[in-house]
């Protein structure tokens, strides 16, 4: 059953990726990216990672699609992608090379769910054995993220705040906005 679901999701993922490549309309491209994220979220559910699927569905499908659409709306003209007829050999070679390297790299990844694999031998085993006892939180992902890896999560939150401050500094100024409106209005 899970094989069929996986197969359907992966085929749709491939179709979506090709559609993103083929379409020349940026609006459609933004929507297709959202759908792509939704399919990836489905894959995460099949892989028993509902926490990650949650994030992917909410951020990838929801917020980033909306932000992309708002960006498209704020650049009035330019919804069509202008394709230049440059040589495509070099990008193709780089893509094939990169893809080959990634496929070669997958040979070293541990089998899915293999309890003997390296990442499952040390800290992960301890989290699973002692996690609930030490933190009293049944959801192990929350226990690891919030307690064992509290420093990492503090860093993550600071990154989110920093990103917000960065956007505010670049786009938040009202004076610059007025200049843009004047130059647009002529």
């Amino acid at each position, binding site marked *: 059953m899970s094989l069929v679901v996986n197969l359907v999701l992966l085929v749709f993922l491939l179709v979506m990726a090709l559609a993103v490549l083929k379409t020349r309309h940026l609006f459609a491209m933004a929507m297709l990216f959202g759908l792509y994220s939704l399919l990836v979220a489905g894959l995460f559910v099949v892989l028993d990672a*509902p*926490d990650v*699927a*949650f*994030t992917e569905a*909410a*951020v990838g499908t*929801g*917020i980033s699609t*909306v*932000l992309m659409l*708002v*960006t498209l*709306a*704020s650049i*009035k003209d330019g919804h069509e992608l202008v394709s230049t007829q440059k040589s495509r050999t070099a990008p193709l070679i780089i893509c094939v090379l990169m893809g080959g390297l990634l496929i070669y790299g997958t040979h070293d990844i541990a089998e899915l769910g293999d309890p003997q694999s390296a990442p499952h031998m040390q800290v992960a085993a301890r989290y699973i054995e002692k996690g609930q*006892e*030490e*933190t*009293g*939180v*049944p*959801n192990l*992902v*929350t*226990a690891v*993220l*919030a*307690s064992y890896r*509290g*420093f990492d*999560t*503090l860093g*993550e*939150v*600071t990154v*989110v*705040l920093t*990103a*917000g401050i960065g*956007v*505010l500094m670049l*786009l*938040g100024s009202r004076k610059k*906005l007025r200049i*843009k*409106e004047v130059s*647009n209005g002529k």
Partner: protein
Amino acid sequence: MANDLILRVVTKWLSPIIILFALYVQFHGDYSPGGGFQAGVIFSSAILLYSLTYGLDAGLQLIPEYILRIGASLGVLIYGGVGVASMVLGGNFLNYSVLGSTPVAGQHLGIIIIELGVGITVASVMVLLFFTFARRVAPE
């Protein structure tokens, strides 16, 4: 989009449910999938939906921007504050065990508070990003 009756009605019914779901994901995150980050994003998506349907001014009326700026900083402050509080109480930075009467109670309390901090920051920053981007869209 502000004149589409179906969108307006659906948004009016859907936004509170999304916010309720965000609160569930936030405070039930230690039992079921979810947590502060997901809850913050879901909460902000409700505000985004509202602002997309009813216009940016309605969204700004709902949550003024200065509250978002305060919220974004407040979340990180809560998170760091828990760390400092555990230091004051004699533990290491972010060691929640000293916060409660027993180590497990302390851990539980610490996790809930820092998840709240994460949620507040993420929700505020996401809505703030949207407002900042949307303000650059020239009126039709």
